């Protein structure tokens, strides 16, 4: 294997070496690969800039954690007795990039929200009587598809996570099954402004929201789900995690008469800051 990489590197396909930059930032390369990246970095400012970005991504994994208190005196003591080195021979030194743009928050005003359909879009979606078996089946199929997507076989310990996820989905699916047989349950449906369809199954204090064919939100933005109360107030039900345009969320123990979705900064907002792309209300 290393022979083949050796040859690849030797052939000097720069694109290939460039593809190793994420691995370089992750410290995930073998010596040979690392050397070929370092050669690229010496001559290529774009590669250095890309590396700086990847390093910032990798650094974002680290969670600041207070080290043991006794470490402080020990390090400061060593520092007093350790001479500093000069700036020279820094590996892949200065590049002309400016760091200031690195941490700039995405400017929300510049991000295109889905076409505004007006606040009334989707209000009063169809109310479907659950005695219609067709609907019941559709929900069942949707849940099975979600469970199947989570159950893709993954080797090693990642499987633990998948199992946990599957258990969670199974539990969720049991709750939704119970909701489905509740004679008072109803399903509200509506189109999403900007594309896609949404529906919510309401039974007692539980709501199961589903949507599909959703367009990818603009970078730095996310769909956020809201529970609408009888007096018109809304409370957050979290940012929706969308995969292949599909999303589902079970919200339990809420007294709401409907749900709404807005496009918000990806970390979510405390209150909606944009007009809803869909409102599903009784």
């Amino acid at each position, binding site marked *: 294997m*290393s022979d083949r990489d050796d040859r690849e590197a030797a052939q000097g396909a720069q694109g290939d070496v460039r*593809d*190793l*930059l*994420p*691995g370089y930032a992750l*410290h*995930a390369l*073998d010596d040979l690969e690392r050397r070929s990246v370092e050669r690229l970095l010496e001559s290529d400012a774009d590669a250095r*800039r890309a590396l*700086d*970005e*990847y*390093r*910032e*991504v*990798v*650094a*974002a*994994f*680290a*969670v*600041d*954690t*207070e*080290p043991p208190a006794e*470490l*402080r005196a020990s*390090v*400061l003591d*060593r*520092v007093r007795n*350790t001479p*500093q*080195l000069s*700036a020279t021979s820094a590996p892949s*030194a200065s*590049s*002309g*990039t*400016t*760091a200031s*743009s*690195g*941490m*700039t*928050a*995405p400017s929300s005003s510049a991000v295109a929200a889905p076409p505004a359909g007006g606040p009334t879009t989707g209000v009063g979606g169809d109310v479907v009587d659950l005695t219609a078996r067709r609907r019941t089946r559709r929900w069942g199929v949707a849940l099975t598809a979600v469970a199947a997507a989570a159950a893709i076989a993954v*080797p*090693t*310990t*990642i499987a633990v*996570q998948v199992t946990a996820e599957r258990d969670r989905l199974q539990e969720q699916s049991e709750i939704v099954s119970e909701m489905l047989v509740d004679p008072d349950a109803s399903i509200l449906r509506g189109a999403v402004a900007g594309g896609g369809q949404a529906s919510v199954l309401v039974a007692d204090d539980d709501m199961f929201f589903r949507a599909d064919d959703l367009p990818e939100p603009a*970078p*730095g933005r*996310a769909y956020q789900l809201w529970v609408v109360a009888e007096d018109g107030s809304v409370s957050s039900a979290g940012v929706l*995690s969308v995969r292949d345009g599909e999303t589902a969320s079970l919200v339990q123990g809420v007294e709401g008469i409907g749900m709404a979705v807005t496009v918000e900064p*990806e*970390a*979510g907002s405390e209150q909606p800051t944009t007009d809803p792309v869909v409102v599903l209300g009784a």
Partner: protein
Amino acid sequence: MASPPARTSSRDSVDALLTACAGGDPASFTPVYDALAPVAYGASIGVLRDPDHAAEVTQEVMVEVWQTAARFDAARGSARTWVATLARRRAVDRVRSEQARRDRDQRDTDLRNGESARDVVVEDVERSLDGSAVRRCIEGLTPTQREAVVVAYYGGLTYREVAEQLGAALPTVKSRIRDGLIRLRDCLGVARNV
């Protein structure tokens, strides 16, 4: 705004502290230690998962930060990123040398260590991610990208080892990690527009 760590607001001042301690009095390093030791320790323990090892690596890294402060270039990234990079590199090197030692010893010992100590313990990973700036963004990766990135990051593995652990082809793993980091980059908003 929300995605970079809360520390971001003080980024410039931390960068300035680090820059100032280059060629300075050792006393000028004290505020640098206080500002940056937590990221060194956090990055170390993410990979090592052992507080004693992480403390040792943090000590080495913070002394290195002092020694090489003149090489810090704020134009290429924040002090936090620089220290996180140094810490993770040392932590991964330690994981690898520990693993090499264990592999040597293994022949003489029982099979208790049969499961690789470098297998990523997912519960730990999930816990480790809480509070990190990537927590939200990692959801935006495909399952295969996420798995490859997480295994590479927390396992301290090389591409080749990631490929072995996941039973995937090496080029596949390379592109998954690349695409995964690109998505994270875009989500975190770290792309530098030139």
